[in-house]
């Protein structure tokens, strides 16, 4: 089984998501990027947009505003000033 990426999405009000996932796609200020397990240490500011968390068949989308993503060997941390999950309609 492939390695999993530990990701936590925190806002000042609460921790919105924490867990092991396959992949995270986030809107970096210099372009959208995807993070898999064992990514090189990396840090960026985030633009306003959706953070997509993918794990198997599960797909969760959070709209974030103003924040940072920090990828270290412990996993990925997204610090968002504001974030909320939006529920996608399934086609």
């Amino acid at each position: 089984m492939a390695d999993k990426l530990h990701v936590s999405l925190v806002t000042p009000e609460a921790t919105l998501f924490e867990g092991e996932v396959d992949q995270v796609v986030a809107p970096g200020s210099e372009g959208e990027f995807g993070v898999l397990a064992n990514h090189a240490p990396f840090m960026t500011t985030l633009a306003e947009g959706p953070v997509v968390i993918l794990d198997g068949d599960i797909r969760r989308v959070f709209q974030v505003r103003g924040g940072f993503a920090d990828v270290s060997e412990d996993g990925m941390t997204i610090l968002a000033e504001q974030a909320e999950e939006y529920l996608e309609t399934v086609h």
Partner: protein
Amino acid sequence: MASLKDMRNQIGSVKATQKITKAMQMVAAAKLRKAQDSAQNARPYAQKMAAVIANLAKGIIGDSAPAMLVGTGSQHNQLVVVATGDRGLAGGFNTAIVRAARDFINAELKAGRDVRIITIGRKARDQLKRTFADRIIESYEAGSKSPTMAVVRPISEKIAAEFNDGRADVVTLFYSRFQSVISQVPTAKRLIPADIDLSIVQDTHGAVYEYEPSEEEILEVLLPRNLSVQILSSMLENNAGFYAAQMSAMDNATRNAGEMVNALTLKYNRSRQAQITKELIEIISGAEAL
């Protein structure tokens, strides 16, 4: 001596007060639980933020470091931010914070520095207005609901503006650290230059961090945001501390009222009996005289 009716009224009014303090204690207890939860929920964000800043700061301490991180090199213009609750009836909670701030301000003034004040919470404004009215540049209310980013943002923007315009070199925040339900400690937290704990820097095992955009640019966005986060977490701790202090103050008041009711009831019964005895003596000696 007070008549029996007066004493009855007094007992009644103490009992009514006791009911109010009891109700306030229970309300404070319920609100305390919620305030503690939100203070706890905010902690991971603040911790991660501190870790990220420490990580960045370690790499670029030097000439290129932004002033908000390392300070302007001067200590002259002090900006003091004092955060208390809006309301009282919480024992010495607000007063303790204000006293700590006032001691600090007096010491800075003695050292010949210029001090200006921003207050958060009505009590801070009311108490500091007496002595430092001309030094208060802005007052905010803490709000009755749990503080949010929306409440904090104008405050941190004001502080950042003061700093960027060169009207403040050092910014210190006074609030009450929530140690436990029975102990809240008035605390000074330095906001600018940022107080960085380098011990929390993660060891990357030689791996090189990549930054996008550059470290300096990230810090420039991150530091003002860190201001907001620091203020928010202080206000959340204040909020929890306020309800804890109010709860124990009201618990004391309820207990004191109970003791007072007991003492008054005893006194009332004694005087009632004394009066009955007196009346009996009067009747008996009246009958004997016949």
